[in-house]
């Protein structure tokens, strides 16, 4: 069909301008899309649920007073409310480990827990691993060993590895420990691989991540 004879012919630019206006009109109401879209739960008005609560989070040594809905995950609070975007959202379902942070020194998946459940804890993200402008030994080893390619999983890998070293120091067992009745402190490759299995790397930097960890774990009194 010849466009020139189409009734009410509209140029591509006209069309795009039109749809842009329509799109902004749709997003005009000052309610987050997630709230507006959420159907009311049984027996209660959705509006009542949306009430934010005061939540005090201590992250990387700083105390933050936030106002959050109970359903906000720790991951979203860190990234969206505190601007700490070092912690990554990979799968958002506890399957990839990109969101790994430390809560009172223990590694957890920030995507599968609510921010409000972590009041009173010391949260450490990848932004908090360096001290006084100096990279942690693990961070330095990741650079030396080229333990990443795209880098998206790296913050989770680093937080996870930091906790791994503490777990080894404590003598924690793993699924590949020969006799779980005895304290485990030998950081064999098999032990490190098993203990890092909660952190996926789609670039496949595993050999270099292993090398970085092996090097730091072998240092006496490995501080992580």
């Amino acid at each position, binding site marked *: 069909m010849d466009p020139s004879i189409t009734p009410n012919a509209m140029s591509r630019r006209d069309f795009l301008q039109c749809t842009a206006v329509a799109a902004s009109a749709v997003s005009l109401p000052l309610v987050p899309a997630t709230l507006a879209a959420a159907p009311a739960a049984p027996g209660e008005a959705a509006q009542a649920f949306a009430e934010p609560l005061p939540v005090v989070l201590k992250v990387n040594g700083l105390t933050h007073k936030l106002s959050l809905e*109970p359903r906000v995950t720790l991951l979203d609070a860190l990234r969206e409310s505190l601007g700490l975007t070092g912690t990554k959202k990979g799968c958002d379902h506890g399957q990839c480990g990109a969101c790994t942070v430390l*809560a009172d020194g223990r590694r957890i998946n920030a995507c*599968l827990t609510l921010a409000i459940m972590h009041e009173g804890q010391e949260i450490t993200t990848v932004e908090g691993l360096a001290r006084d402008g100096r990279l942690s030994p693990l961070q330095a080893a990741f650079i030396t060993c080229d333990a990443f390619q795209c880098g998206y999983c790296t913050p989770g890998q680093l937080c*996870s590895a930091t906790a791994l070293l503490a777990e080894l120091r404590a003598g924690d*067992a793993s*699924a590949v420990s020969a006799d779980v009745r005895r304290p485990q402190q030998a950081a064999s490759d098999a032990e490190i691989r098993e203990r890092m299995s909660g952190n996926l790397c789609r670039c496949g930097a595993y050999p270099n991540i292993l090398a970085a960890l092996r090097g730091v774990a072998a240092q006496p009194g490995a501080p992580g």
Partner: protein
Amino acid sequence: MRPFFYDRASNPEHALDLARQPDSRFIAGGTNLIDLLKNDVQQASRLIDLNRAGLEAIQATADGGLSLGALARNSDTANHPQVRQHYPLLTQAILSGASPQLRNMATNAGNLMQRTRCYYFNDPAFDRCNKRVPGSGCAALEGFSRNHAVLGASEACIATHPSDMCVALAALDAVVLVRGPQGERRIPLGEFHRLPGSQPHLDTTLGEGELITAILLPPSPFQDHAHYLKVRDRASYAFALVSVAAGLALRGDVVEHASVALGGVAPRPWRVPGAEAALIGQRVGTAGFDRQAGGVADALLAGAHGTKDNQFKVLLARRSIVRALQLAGQPMGGAV
């Protein structure tokens, strides 16, 4: 995630009071529940946070056993000195499940309460799931059923219970301690998870408003000879296709007592009373032991049948049972 109200329980009684509110759910580690809420597989108007309810103690009991607090983390339970020394089977099983991050969050009671990882249950895009929407049918029956049950299933549901920890608890004759509006009661682990029958939406025998407070372990004779064997599609961080918790008590090298439970094959940790009797009196490391281990497998797998996708599990389970018993008979950690 749909919005919800949030309450924080300061002790078990407070938690039970809060749970009287309509459409409320307990949350502890959250590793399964938050995922289910995100996917809209489950809904709740109110979450009651148990993390400050003071139920994390792991302590000796008067009968010489151990009480595992409902709120103790899986990682703390696995690495507790008393658990490692006296219940190594439980340590092995816990550490073979999930990842270190998840085990640091997940609690003992939460492990019992986790839902199946049936693909169709976990994705509301599928209309048919009797466990998620009672009466809607079962998409797994005609769909892909590699990780589904070969024992204890029904025409309404072929989902498995995904836990490793519970398999060891079954082999160790654990008891679930529960508090509710009618007071306290004890549920043997073997009676805690339900078979689906015509009501697959009911996973457990836990009553309305009841709260798990502890898991009780009787004294165990399996502190020296125990093996948890997990067979899965990758070496770590995957659910079991088949798992076996095997414990042996030996006098010299002769079996005095044995216990075997299966995971990954049924809607609950699978035990058959008396299945282990054939092993009593056998000498580990002999052909007779291996033969009787096969007899144990036959007893445990009686009536097993799979789908086109998981029939392999029956033979895999048989061989895994024999292998786990052989390994349990050896010194832990191999000949060192």
